[in-house]
């Protein structure tokens, strides 16, 4: 089978969860004897671009044995990450994509959404894996700047009421909403890695019950190499950790605020991750932790360090204040057998489950979180018991196997 993956950005310049999902899936498909190619968009100023026409440039390269076709505008338009379709890209794709693919699989439609017109024109089945709410929400996360969670954009009206966008944007957002819905209707099979994410699209009337297939994200267990854990005595401190980018929506401030309420001296909080552009937020976090010896900011980390990091952490905290869909940190922690404390909303709650893989606390409730931390610190045996009964996330090979089955049904 010949499969084209479309994703809004890709390695080597971008390496978040979605890119990793595409790379892992593409490689596993190759292993299973299929031909793959990745179509992506790249905003970097790297060399090696070829000019396709007045508006567009392209570059072909290979990443880890996978062929990649990257596109880029000569002058990047301001709405490149906002619009669903890009007119000049439609014809460009037709010219650049010569292979006769059996399936087009969109992993994220941002910047590359135009691929759906190509699929339609060539009568190729289209499959879409949901990774966030971008199709519904131009800000992708369904959270308003005032931290209020959103459930429905109400066909765009909710977006342009002054909270997220100014009223002048109203028509553009409504147009975008319907363009997006049109793309959605042209997708043959929709897949969601979490039931929660699927339910949001259901609530908005975009799909009926059971229309969206549920295929959980798989973990590449060949990179998960747990180191043996040190046997703890009662006097050893309990180590909590946060792993991920230090962004407001990730709720690091919630964790720190809770920590201010924790009285125990026998618990530590290790914060791993870079702050990217949210420098101000980082400064705020540092002020919050000021003088607290139990809190350590350990900066960004390499993926290769994960076995060591996971071996020293007893519990990972995921205090996000937005829904989260299929948070990679949470899944990786479970793959390493580390239980998780997470906010009780969205994908986080779904993967932690009813007391299955860890504990949940009401989103933003610092007191409840603090109480939980205290409880676990006082009784570390609860953590060990929980760790032993974690049900690990599926493997990438399993995820690929399901997708292969879906593709072969479409072909």
């Amino acid at each position, binding site marked *: 089978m010949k499969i084209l993956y479309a994703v809004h950005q890709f390695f080597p310049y971008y390496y978040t969860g979605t890119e990793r999902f595409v790379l892992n899936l593409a490689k596993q498909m190759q292993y299973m004897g299929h*031909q793959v190619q990745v179509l992506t968009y790249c905003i970097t100023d790297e060399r090696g671009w070829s000019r396709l026409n007045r508006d567009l440039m392209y570059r072909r390269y290979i990443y880890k044995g*996978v*062929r990649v076709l990257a596109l880029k505008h000569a002058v990047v338009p301001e709405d490149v990450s906002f619009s669903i379709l890009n007119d000049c890209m439609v014809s460009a794709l037709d010219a650049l994509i010569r292979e006769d693919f059996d399936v087009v699989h969109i992993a994220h439609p941002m910047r590359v959404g135009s691929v759906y017109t190509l699929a339609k024109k060539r009568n190729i089945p289209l499959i879409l894996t949901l990774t966030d709410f971008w199709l519904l929400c131009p800000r992708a996360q369904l959270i308003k700047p005032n931290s209020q969670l959103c459930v429905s954009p109400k066909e765009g009206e909710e977006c342009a009421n002054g909270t997220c966008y100014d009223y002048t944007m109203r028509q553009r957002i409504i147009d975008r909403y319907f363009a997006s819905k049109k793309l959605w209707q042209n997708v043959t099979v929709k897949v969601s890695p979490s039931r929660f994410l699927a339910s949001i699209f259901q609530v908005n009337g975009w799909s009926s019950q059971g229309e*969206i297939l*549920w*295929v*959980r994200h798989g973990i590449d267990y*060949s990179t998960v190499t747990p180191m043996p854990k040190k046997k703890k005595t009662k006097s050893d401190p309990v180590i909590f950790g946060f792993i991920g980018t230090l962004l407001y929506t990730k709720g690091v401030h919630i964790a720190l605020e809770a920590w201010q309420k924790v009285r125990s001296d026998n618990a530590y909080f290790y914060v791993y991750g870079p702050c990217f552009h949210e420098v101000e937020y980082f400064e705020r976090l540092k002020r919050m932790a000021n003088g607290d010896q139990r809190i350590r900011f350990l900066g960004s980390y390499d993926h290769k360090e994960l076995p060591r990091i996971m071996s020293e952490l007893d519990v990972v905290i995921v205090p996000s204040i937005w829904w989260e869909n299929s948070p990679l940190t949470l899944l990786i922690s479970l793959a390493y057998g580390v239980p998780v404390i997470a906010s009780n909303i969205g994908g986080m709650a779904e993967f932690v489950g009813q007391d299955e893989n860890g504990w949940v606390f009401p989103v933003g409730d610092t007191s409840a979180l603090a*109480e939980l931390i205290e*409880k676990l610190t006082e009784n570390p045996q609860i953590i060990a018991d929980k760790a032993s009964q974690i049900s690990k996330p599926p493997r990438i090979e399993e995820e690929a196997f399901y997708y292969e089955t879906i593709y072969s049904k479409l072909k």
Partner: protein
Amino acid sequence: MSDDDLIFENNRSQSEQKALIDWTGERYVPWVDLGTPEIHYEHLHRYFFASQFVEGKKVLDMASGEGYGCAIMAEKAAEVTGVELDEKAVKHAASRYPLPNVRFIKGSITEVPIQGEKVFDVITCFEAIEHIEEHEKLLIEVKRLLKDDGLFIISSPNKLLYSDKPAYQNPYHVRELYFDDFCGLLTKFFRYVCFLGQKVFPISSIWPLGTGEGFLKEVCVRKADTGFIQVGVQEKIPLYFIAIASEQQLPEGNRFSTLTDVSEELVAHLRRIVGEKEQLLAEAKREFSIEKEALSAQLAEKEKHILQLEENLTNLTNQLSTREKEFLEEKERLEARIAEKKQRILELEQSLADLSNNVSTREKEFLEEKEILEVQLNEKERTIAHLEQSLNEFRRHLTEKDAEVSLVHNSLGWRLIQKYRRVMDRLFPLGTSRRKFYEMAQKGLKIALTEGPFMLGRKATQKAIQYFGSYRKTFVVSDQQDREISQECGVSAINSIFYVNSFHSDTVSSCISVIIPVKNAGSELESILKKIRFQRGIKEVEIIVIDSGSTDGSLDIARSWADTILTIDPKEFNHGTTRNLGAKSARGDILVFTVQDAIPVGDYWLKTLVNPLLHLPDVAAVSCRQIPRSDADLFACWSINNHYKLLRLFKDEIFKADESYWKTKNLLEKRRRASLDNVCSAIKRIAFEKEPFKPMKFAEDLELGLRLLKAGWGIGFLHSVGVIHSHNRSPFYFLKRSYLDKKVLRSLFEDPFFADTIVPNLGSLVFTLNCFNYQLKAWGMLLNNLEEISYDYAKQKLNEALSYCFENNNNEKKNGGIRDKFLFDKEIEKLLEKLKCVAEGCPENCIETIKHDILASSYQFMDYLSHTQILPEISEVVSAIYKIFAVVIGDWLSRANLPEEFVLALEEGV
């Protein structure tokens, strides 16, 4: 027949004459161009010769033919009569030569239709006598018609020269005469006969100039448009002059002289020249025709081109006119639009003026409104001041209350209550069930105190119902969820014909036993056992582990997850017996055999695996598909894919063996249908009890597959069910595996090509192996540019690289110096070296065939790369080729009757 019928006299002019007869090859016709004038000379000369005897006489020409002879003689004779047998010729002659003193009669020369006797002065008969049989009758007829003093002039071909010498037979001639016969015939009828000869010779002629006639009667002719005509002697122009001069009267005598070349060399010479010229001409003609052809082809092409150009021109002209039209239309349209725009600008200017008027009006309104608002603002400010005042009052009040509270806190009673709470927290810690009971008791006490003990009892019962009720509910919900997941995750869509309908049915109620042989399984064992233990949709899963001497703690892990653990001595291990042992202690109706490093795909793996066995009564066993691990190397991926490709296992299938199966010589087809795979297989207990595994070190699954087929069972392959299973192992491992694999397969399928062959000396391959290292690395560099080069080109280059290694293996000493320090697998090299000592020789073409096998597999490998478009690391490709090499060597060794120690070494650790 009257005379009138026979006589053709015609008065039409000669110019109107038309030939009524054609040249047949025999009868002479004077107007025909025969290429050579010889025949003209002969015929004309005879009549001109005869003319000297006919002046004023009455002449009969026998066999007058075309009539020209009569015409010649009529110049001098008083009257000429031609007699001719052919009516057409007579008509022709009469119309062609309408002379007043000539007549032509139809008739035979032996019976001339003229009455009377002694009629003619002269009778001629040229080249006619050989056409008739009755010569004497002719002579008698001549005698009848000739006057007593008349002359008879006759000619006849000399048979000796005409027919005998050239061995020529003229089909028209009836009876030819030798000279003796001719002489005899004439002397018999006439007293005086003078014989003359005639032949055309090339001659040199000497004749007297300007002195009129001499002794010789000379006839001169010239070729004119109408044929040969007689001309005067004066037309004869000498090329040389000769003179005879003297003071005396010149002697009388013959001034004529001819030199005759009897060998006719001049003619021969001319013929030669003509021959050469003709040859040249023919050649020239041929060249000309070729040239002509080429030119005409060119011409045709040019013409075509011209036509095309003309067409293009027409098209362009058409386009031009269309464009012009369009241009004009566009121009018109644009002009119209310009006018429109101008109008619009005017309108806009107008509305701008209106707007500015409007703005000034609005400004006025705004100012008015502002004034009103300012008034309102002042009002509000006053209200705020008022509110602030009230707030301050509240604060004061609050401070007073705070003071009261701190008084209470400091009191003894409060401190006692706090103490009590701390004690309670310690006795009943938060979050524990003790605390829950404490809180419940507290609540109960409160209820008992406020609402009475009866109320307490009722509420407690309600709580209990709620608690257990909700427990049951949770259980039911999770069961429902179970099914929802199966639908949502696409499992229901995934599955094939066998269980699409059955999928939604209830949980499998029978017990399924999973049997796993284990030895040092490593850290993954726990997650695999756990995954099997928590399979969904199966009521009871029984796990049986058979350990053969693990030392890495596998046994401890197994203890926490397996139902039964059996241990055996590692020495006793073989694939068949060990599994039979596990099966013996199994309780399940279906036995699932898998291996310690095969990871089930999904939570419904077991259910979908056993489903066909539950629903298809004639199927005894199924096995499922293996997929490579995410850390599989390229060789592992290829070999799994290639295995299924070769066996054409691309979908869920049930195989049965009919008669043709046992007869077929197609080993792949045989293997395909019997392909039971113990990496993951499920077998019905009832079938297995009759047909257990045989104690085999290898391929016990395939052997069982064949036996089940023989017993009439069906065997299934499930492409839609998977286990993750692949190995990244050393080339030596693959050599050993290939050795065993091929050996067992050959014996299982009774390969007709399999025969114990001599132990081959593969020692020379050691060098090939070393050479590989360098050559393959160089070839691998090429793959870096696979984007630009084609896979076919890469294949060709690989062929060259391998050929180089093999061709040079015989020159080991010569090339010994370039050995690479890096040896790809020392074990293989050691084995090949050792083999040298026990080798019995090198079978013919052995090395050549090995090279061929390596190339064939490498090409399949390259096809996989090409098909998947993988652009791998060079080292991975090179390593894969090494492993292919190892597999081929293993295959070769499996054909030989190896000594025991080799067999043991090769079978160890596979």
